[in-house]
């Protein structure tokens, strides 16, 4: 026993201690970020938007989502990550809804692991009357191009400043012209991108976790977003 060098014991113990230190430090950091950005927690966000949380954990932080124990642990076979948040209300005179869905399922095969991911985060405002579908997206963002979601071709709005910064897709020239007037109101969100989707009944601002428009940057101006989106719903649907 005395012939075994001390390093054989010391190094594994040191490595374990270092590992423990980094794990504890990371958890502490996550907790502190969660506190620092508490305005992104579902409960506080709903309050900022003037909505009532109707589904989901009020402590779930949409910016620091790894603070959530399920997200941190990751998915396993037969144990998916499923986070769903829903808040509703009508603080600006039209029905407004915030919805967030993050679900990851894992399936371990013989030679591969398959992850199926569902992600959707949007703030939507209901219009009183049906309107022509449209989509408006920033031409570029620091996080790459925004992916269009509806089968609509681009149409010029008649406002050169808007056409330079946004792609507006619709079939109705009247809708394109209206968006040419309204889109400058969303200037505050231009830094991380604007993605507006009008499906004919409601208008929604669609956000992403790791691409433009980033949830964190967009929801920094949550109050403004709720107001401008409600105004857009009124303009397109009365």
């Amino acid at each position, binding site marked *: 026993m005395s012939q075994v060098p001390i390093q054989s014991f010391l190094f594994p113990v040191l490595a374990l201690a270092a590992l423990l230190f980094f794990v504890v430090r990371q958890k502490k950091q996550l907790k502190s970020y969660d506190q620092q950005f508490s305005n992104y927690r579902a409960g506080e966000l709903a309050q900022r938007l003037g909505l009532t949380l109707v589904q989901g954990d009020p402590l779930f932080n949409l910016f620091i989502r790894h603070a959530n124990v399920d997200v941190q642990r990751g998915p396993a076979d037969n144990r998916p990550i499923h986070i769903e948040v829903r808040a509703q209300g009508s603080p600006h005179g039209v029905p407004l809804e915030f919805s967030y869905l993050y679900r990851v399922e894992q399936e371990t095969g013989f030679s591969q692991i398959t992850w199926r991911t569902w992600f959707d985060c949007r703030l939507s405002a209901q219009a*009183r*009357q*049906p*309107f*022509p*579908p449209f989509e408006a997206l920033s031409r570029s963002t620091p996080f790459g*191009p925004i*992916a*269009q*979601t*509806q*089968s*609509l*071709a*681009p149409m010029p709005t008649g406002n050169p400043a808007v056409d330079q910064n946004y792609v507006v*897709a*619709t*079939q*109705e*020239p*009247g*809708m394109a012209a*209206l968006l040419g007037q309204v889109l400058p109101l969303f200037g505050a969100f231009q830094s991380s991108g604007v993605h507006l989707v009008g*499906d*004919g*009944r409601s208008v929604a601002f669609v956000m992403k976790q790791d691409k433009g428009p980033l949830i964190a940057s967009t929801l920094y101006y949550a109050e403004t977003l709720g107001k401008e989106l409600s105004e857009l719903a009124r*303009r*397109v*649907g*009365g």
Partner: protein
Amino acid sequence: MGLGSPHDFGRRITVHRGTFSAGGWAWYIGGLLLLASVVGPLRAVVAPTPDQVRMGFDDVLLTAGAALVLGLLVLIVPVLRWRQQVELFENGFVWTGLTGTRSIGRDQVRGVELIRHRSKMGVRTEIKVTLTDGRRLSVSGVDQPEQLANVIGTFGRPAPAAVAPTPGWSAPAGGWRPPGT
């Protein structure tokens, strides 16, 4: 009647071209094999190595030929991925590649899946389109795959009101005008 020709597909939304990077390591491996098929015989002519002298020129040519065939085989997939494009229209899409052109109408699409394959060879994004006749198309290595999958995904669902009137909204005569104007 089904939509079968690009003329019926309406206005063009976007064009998604194949990317060079979609070939990944295959470019490197295929390129090395092609290089070996040229450099080997050249070296045998100019300054043969002792191994080449022992093998003889015929065997050197045989080895070079094998490297050439293998290199070309390895490069087939990256070249096919690179030289392709998908034109996306309001009512369908046209997929053009070195092996031909396929036009798929809105009513031929049943569903779509966007799959990211991660391995030691890199990341590859694949779009699997399921058609109503049960066939499956696999499009790999085009730019902006998420947008392509999103829009093709809408083909499998009821059309937007402006494309095919639904209970939601239908185009009024003379065009739409904002309420109150």
